[in-house]
């Protein structure tokens, strides 16, 4: 029996009329022929009809056959001998396996009740031995088809399992379950079939699938179709401190539906309930803001959309603690805690960040530490590391550890003082790009350097405008290390002579901020200037994206996977071709299938058709080339 994997391609057979039309339309066009003298040549009318030579007809037939074979090959034909199709009738009983999707998306749109109804209807299928597999991202539970028909009905079993176990909070991945189903069914003799009950959500079923042997029939049962065109998803909540010890709560709500929805958003606190109406445009992320008073801080809170807003309510509720986000830690390393230099820089940094953290969303807390807490565990919880000038020349610091930390996305701020040579050597030996050291400027007494114009690429140009910039230019520096910055470095501040004073160097996913002068009063009046606060704040905030992935991030995310809130589903027509070999097949999975598990009787005809197409194409090219040569003019060698 002839069958096609892509029967829609057969519609293209209508295109066979094209070569016929071309042959009907085309006629012998006069070709230019440069001739010595046309005095003896008289004019004649051109023949009215097209070329009707036998070779032309042969060419046309060849082209039609070529096109037809190509279309047939693309349609994926396979031939099953009649005796093969007669095999099922020899075996009276049939093995069938139900694959039930229990991924998070099945928790809504009434998918599970619909699925249970389908299971009830499947019970009426005669002479079938049922087995089942429940899956989300992997196989959750399974029952093999009984070898004899005397066992209790396994379909009752799955219904009971589904009532007891609600869908997981996991994104689905049907591949492991399909592999397991193929493995189970190939060990069962006789005819077999696979019933897949799922909502066929696009995000789950667009993943790579595996080939199911053609011997196994596949039936798709789509569930979760009820009101599938709408879904609002509460994705995350962010708490932000505001002035007056109040707290702002920002909820991010995504409308996955195809139409705008107006809904009430409810914030439940221990003592109060706040509600707000909002309009959610389709395919847009909307932020809803609540501001709560001081009394409500630190209490448990829940942000939710009312029941019945949409048919998938798993992503409509989010519980969190109504508290400001914990401050981000900055480790200020100072192994010799007695040294006053290190203390002074750390003190100024701590004061500056403490002052600027008030009323800000992200707060920083500077922790002066020795060497012991600098280990991968503590660094993983740290937003930034500060190495003052008094410490940067110290070789005992775990520089390689710090390099790894920066490469993984951390921020390291280092100031250079008298010991700049050693500090730069330490940095270089750990793998940091530092550029070339050109010496120490300002060794003379009473010498002062002032800032030059802000470089165009410096982000500080946006921060310092007008009077603020005047204050910046009043800043005096007594000593700084002269450096030729590395290629990828960005200069934030520079001296009047164009020497960089503050640079940021990208390393891996993170950054190193290098201050070429120490932040203490002996080297400059920088920490005493009003400009110090915004500059320090900018240094740590400009890499905000770096710190977003850190554990201190105040955002609370929904436990339901965001991909499961998507309402789009895949077409089962496309799925059947992918399951029948249209998609990539994982080698280990196919290797586990024995040759008996494959439908060896069905013969794929596409390769043979393509081979024949190739042969016809060569013949056609040869014939067409000959005709062109024949019709081409003999005076082609005549020079222009």
């Amino acid at each position, binding site marked *: 029996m002839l069958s096609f994997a892509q029967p829609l391609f057969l519609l293209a057979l209508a295109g066979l009329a094209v070569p016929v039309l071309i042959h009907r339309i085309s006629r*012998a*066009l*006069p*070709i*230019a*022929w*440069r*001739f*010595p*003298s*046309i*005095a*003896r*040549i*008289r*004019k*004649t009318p*051109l*023949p009215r009809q097209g*070329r009707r030579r036998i070779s032309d007809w042969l060419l046309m037939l060849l082209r039609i056959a070529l096109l037809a074979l190509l279309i047939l090959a693309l349609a994926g034909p396979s031939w099953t001998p009649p005796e093969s199709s007669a095999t099922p009738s020899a075996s009276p009983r049939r093995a069938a396996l139900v694959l039930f999707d229990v991924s998070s998306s099945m928790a809504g749109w009434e998918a599970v009740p619909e699925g249970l109804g389908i299971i009830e209807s499947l019970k009426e299928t005669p002479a079938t031995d049922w087995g089942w597999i429940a899956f989300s991202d992997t196989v959750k539970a399974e029952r093999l088809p009984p070898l004899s028909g005397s066992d209790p009905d396994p379909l009752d079993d799955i219904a009971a399992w589904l009532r007891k176990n609600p869908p997981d909070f996991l994104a689905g991945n049907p591949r492991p379950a399909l592999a397991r189903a193929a493995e189970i069914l190939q060990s069962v003799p006789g005819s077999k079939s696979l019933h897949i009950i799922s909502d066929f959500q696009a995000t789950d079923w667009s993943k790579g699938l595996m080939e199911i042997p053609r011997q196994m029939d596949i039936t798709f049962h789509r569930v979760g179709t009820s009101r599938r065109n709408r879904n609002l998803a509460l994705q995350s909540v962010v708490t932000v401190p505001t002035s007056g010890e109040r707290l702002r709560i920002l909820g991010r709500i995504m409308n996955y539906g195809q139409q705008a929805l107006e809904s009430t958003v409810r914030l439940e606190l221990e003592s109060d309930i706040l509600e707000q109406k909002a309009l959610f445009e389709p395919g847009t992320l909307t932020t809803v803001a609540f501001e709560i008073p001081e009394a409500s801080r630190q209490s448990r809170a829940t942000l939710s959309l009312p029941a019945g807003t949409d048919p998938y309510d798993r992503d409509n509720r989010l519980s969190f603690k109504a508290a400001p986000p914990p401050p981000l830690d900055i480790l200020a390393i100072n192994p010799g805690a007695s040294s006053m230099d290190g203390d002074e820089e750390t003190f100024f940094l701590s004061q500056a960040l403490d002052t600027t953290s008030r009323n800000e969303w992200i707060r920083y807390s500077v922790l002066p530490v020795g060497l012991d807490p600098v280990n991968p565990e503590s660094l993983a919880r740290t937003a930034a590391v500060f190495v003052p000038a008094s410490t940067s020349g110290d070789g005992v610091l775990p520089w390689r550890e710090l390099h790894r930390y920066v490469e993984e996305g951390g921020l390291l701020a280092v100031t250079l003082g008298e010991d700049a040579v050693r500090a730069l050597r330490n940095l270089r030996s750990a793998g940091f790009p530092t550029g070339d050291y050109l010496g120490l400027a300002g060794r003379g007494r009473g010498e002062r350097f002032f800032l030059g114009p802000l470089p165009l690429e410096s982000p500080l140009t946006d921060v310092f405008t007008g009077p603020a910039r005047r204050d910046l230019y009043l800043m005096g520096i007594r000593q700084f290390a002269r450096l030729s910055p590395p290629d990828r470095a960005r200069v934030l501040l520079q001296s009047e002579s164009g020497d960089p004073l503050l640079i940021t160097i990208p390393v891996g996913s993170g950054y190193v901020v290098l201050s070429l002068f120490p932040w203490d009063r002996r080297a400059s009046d920088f920490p005493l200037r009003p400009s110090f606060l915004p500059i320090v704040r900018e240094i740590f905030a400009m890499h905000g994206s770096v710190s977003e992935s850190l554990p201190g991030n105040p955002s609370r995310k929904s436990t339901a996977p965001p991909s499961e809130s998507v309402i789009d589903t895949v077409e089962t027509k496309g799925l059947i071709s992918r399951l029948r070999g249209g998609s990539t097949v994982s080698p280990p999975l196919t290797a586990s299938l024995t040759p008996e598990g494959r439908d060896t009787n069905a013969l794929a005809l596409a390769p043979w058709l393509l081979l024949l197409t190739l042969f016809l194409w060569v013949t056609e090219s040869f014939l067409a080339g000959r005709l062109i040569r024949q*019709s081409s*003019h*003999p*005076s*082609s*060698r*005549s*020079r222009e």
Partner: protein
Amino acid sequence: MPADIHKDSDKLLDPAYLSSISNYALMARVAVEGYLSGLHRSRFQGFGSEFLQYRAYTMGEDPRMIDWKVYARRERLQTKVFQEETNMTCNIIVDASASMDYAGSRAACSKFDFARMVAAALAYLALRQGDQVGLYIFNSTLVDAVSPGRRGNRQAAVFHSLSRARPRDRGNPEGVIEYVGHHLRGRGMLVFISDMLDAETSLPGLLARIRIRHHDTLALQTLDPDELAFPESEAARFVDLESGEECVTSPKAVADDYNRSMTVSQERLRRAFADSRIDHHVFSTRNSLGHLLAAYLHRRTQSG
């Protein structure tokens, strides 16, 4: 020159082979030497009056050429080689009009390339015999001329002139024939190489003016196989190489008419030349150069 080339003189005279040789001096030498080696005995070697050189005797040479006095003195057989001196002048006129720039699918080369090869071979042959050679190339005017004489390297001048000529414009033989006729001195030969298209009425009369001045005249008509037998093919838009005029026709339908007209024209030309006692030879660009050289030598013998 490789020995096997001498073995096959027919091949050496094939225009397809000769047109592959870009150096005209070499091409002419290959053609002429190839042709002469095919003859039973050289007729134009060593009978001149001016001594040229001694050469070692080789077996098979005429023993009459041996200088016995040299043998008596040195006991070595030496033959004397003489430069033949003649007062013959050979003027060659080559048509370089645009209509000569045609090479059909059956041709070995274009008509102009064929004419150049013929001119080069004849010039080489004439110079080899000690004749003076003049060359005139024309289209609507006289394009290039090498006057006959003994000074300088005539052979190089002739070949250089042939190699740089390019066919273009309409053909006007009248001017060049008058010019050549005006400068003719003494007795000699005139070789006129052209396709002679649309000139069957005027050309015999013009060449007759040369003939009556005791100059043997050889009219070599070079035609493409397509012109001698019109090819039957699909519809075509014919473009005249000289005038640029166009004519759309079906060659199948007009082939018979064309061939008939061509035959009549050729017959008229043949009669006109015969009346003027001018040798007229028609050559297809597929023909071997051997026939041409034979025609020249035949006429040269009669003149000499």
